[in-house]
């Protein structure tokens, strides 16, 4: 068996897609199933370079439906499996992921968002929020980490494997075309060296012994033919999901206590939001910042607490209100002073335009 994937903690300079491949190796992933699609291709390219050196496997399937189902198969066989996709690939992943929600199969999928609808642009957007949070049939029992930096891509990809295997809900890393392709430094490490214990995968199928004699039969179900049966099956899962939510929900808030206006954003756009906040603070404008890191489950209570202090919001995203839908749902029934939005589907957001926008609003 191969040696430790990362010899010692060190600073490196890479593209985001490469970071994900390394993080998956560091997290102890066994196999990647995938089908090529821009802008996630280099996750596959890089994984296939790393895999033979570290005793890992790769299977290219005929499409994303198959990539999704084989990823589930890997998990059922007791392998830490994962996949990566984008855009129309994420659309095709919905069916296998709905199955994973119902059957409680731990899978990790990295989504590098690209523009939509349909095949459209391949470069960047934040238009896959709807799909990763609530895209399947059912109730959206997923965990979605929206990252903003290469360091987070590394940290949260490792975390995603533990979340998936601990709670047994499909877990997403939500990046985007910019994060996939841009380069910046980060620190890579073996999770064990930092005291992070990686959960060992266990097989659900192919267990030793004779069913009915040595052990109970394994009966994994995805289909419930009677309405009441479905109800009885889903309610405990919802309970588990709610219980888990308190443990996995993550967010970032800065300068909210004395804020006159708060920028809400997620993912890579948060970098512009933080830069704008810092520049405006230097000019004496009291700007705060709120960022959900888990888009699902959403930090509802945390945002409500912030809104109780200041509810003059500027929400900004590279989509037409996909984050806004989640935010409005969290703020339902709260008194809100102002809810300004800047929607730029498929287009990046700069700190400069946020500064300008806020300076105009404040005056």
């Amino acid at each position: 068996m191969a040696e430790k994937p990362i010899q010692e903690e060190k600073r490196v300079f890479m593209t985001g897609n490469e970071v994900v491949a390394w993080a998956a190796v560091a997290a102890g992933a066994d196999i990647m199933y995938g089908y090529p699609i821009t802008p996630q291709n280099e996750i596959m390219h890089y994984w296939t370079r790393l895999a033979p050196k570290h005793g890992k496997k790769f299977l290219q399937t005929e499409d994303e439906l198959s990539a999704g189902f084989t990823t589930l198969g890997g998990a059922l066989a007791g392998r830490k499996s994962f996949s990566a996709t984008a855009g129309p690939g994420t659309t095709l992943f919905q069916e296998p992921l709905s199955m994973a929600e119902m059957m409680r199969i731990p899978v990790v999928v990295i989504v590098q968002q690209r523009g939509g609808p349909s095949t459209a642009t391949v470069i960047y957007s934040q238009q896959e929020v709807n799909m990763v949070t609530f895209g399947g049939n059912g109730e959206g029992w997923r965990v979605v980490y929206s990252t903003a930096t290469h360091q987070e891509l590394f940290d949260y990809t490792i975390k995603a494997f533990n979340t998936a295997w601990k709670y047994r809900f499909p877990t997403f890393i939500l990046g985007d075309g910019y994060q996939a392709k841009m380069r910046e430094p980060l620190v890579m490490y073996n999770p064990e060296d930092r005291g992070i214990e990686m959960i060992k995968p266990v097989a659900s199928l192919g267990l030793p012994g004779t069913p009915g004699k040595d052990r109970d039969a394994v009966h994994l179900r995805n289909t419930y033919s009677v309405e009441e049966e479905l109800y009885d099956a889903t309610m405990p899962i919802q309970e588990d999901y709610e219980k888990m939510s308190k443990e996995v929900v993550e967010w970032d808030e800065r300068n909210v206590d004395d804020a006159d206006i708060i920028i809400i954003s997620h993912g890579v756009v948060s970098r512009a939001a933080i830069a704008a906040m810092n520049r405006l603070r230097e000019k004496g404008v009291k700007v705060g910042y709120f960022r959900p890191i888990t888009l699902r489950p959403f930090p509802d209570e945390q945002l409500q607490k912030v809104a109780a202090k200041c509810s003059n919001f500027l929400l900004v995203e590279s989509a037409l209100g996909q984050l806004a839908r989640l935010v409005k749902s969290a703020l339902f029934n709260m008194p809100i002073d102002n809810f300004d939005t800047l929607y730029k589907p498929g287009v990046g957001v700069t700190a400069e335009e946020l500064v300008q926008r806020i300076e105009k609003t404040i005056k």
Partner: protein
Amino acid sequence: MRYLEAYVGEYASGKSENAINRALSLIDQGQQVSLIDLDLVEPFYTLRPLKKELEALGLEVVAWETRETMGLGEAGSILKPEMRWVLKRPGHVIIDVGYGVSGSDIFNLLEGFEESQLKILAVLNIARPMTSDTEEIIHYLEGFIRVDGLINNSHLGADTDLDIIRQGSDIVTEVSRRLGIPVVATTVDERFRGIMGEKDHHGNPVRYLKRYMERAFW
């Protein structure tokens, strides 16, 4: 003297930045230079946003433009026909070779490659995991048809310091010694001008880079 140079290396090693700066340094000497964006993996992106700017500086840039690629698919892999003949162009020819699984085989697509004096220069950044030490770099270079020169471009983006440049020079110089391939240069961001001088501590020439790729997509 006519320079024919191809810059190869990992993602984010600094291939494009090195190629652009090299081409522009020859332009500054009043010479004719073609810059070729030879990328078959995602050929429509690398130099695309910079093409007009570089042409305005006097470079002849052989790269796709967005409007020429209508209908060729999302990231379509197609060689721009004139790229096949670039080694026959007058003046200096500087080729930015895109990363690819078979990135080194790409030279077979160039008419006259065998008999040409094209120098293949490997751009190396020790802050990249698969080229971070001597053994890894030697293994990595074995994947190429041949390598005629090494460039130490070790950096950490905005976090670059003298340490990483020096360590890079140590490692790349050692590779050079073991493989008998010369170190063409240590390349560093312009902000180190005045600190580094003309040679690094191993005596490799230092070339200063102005950053252009920050404005490109990738």
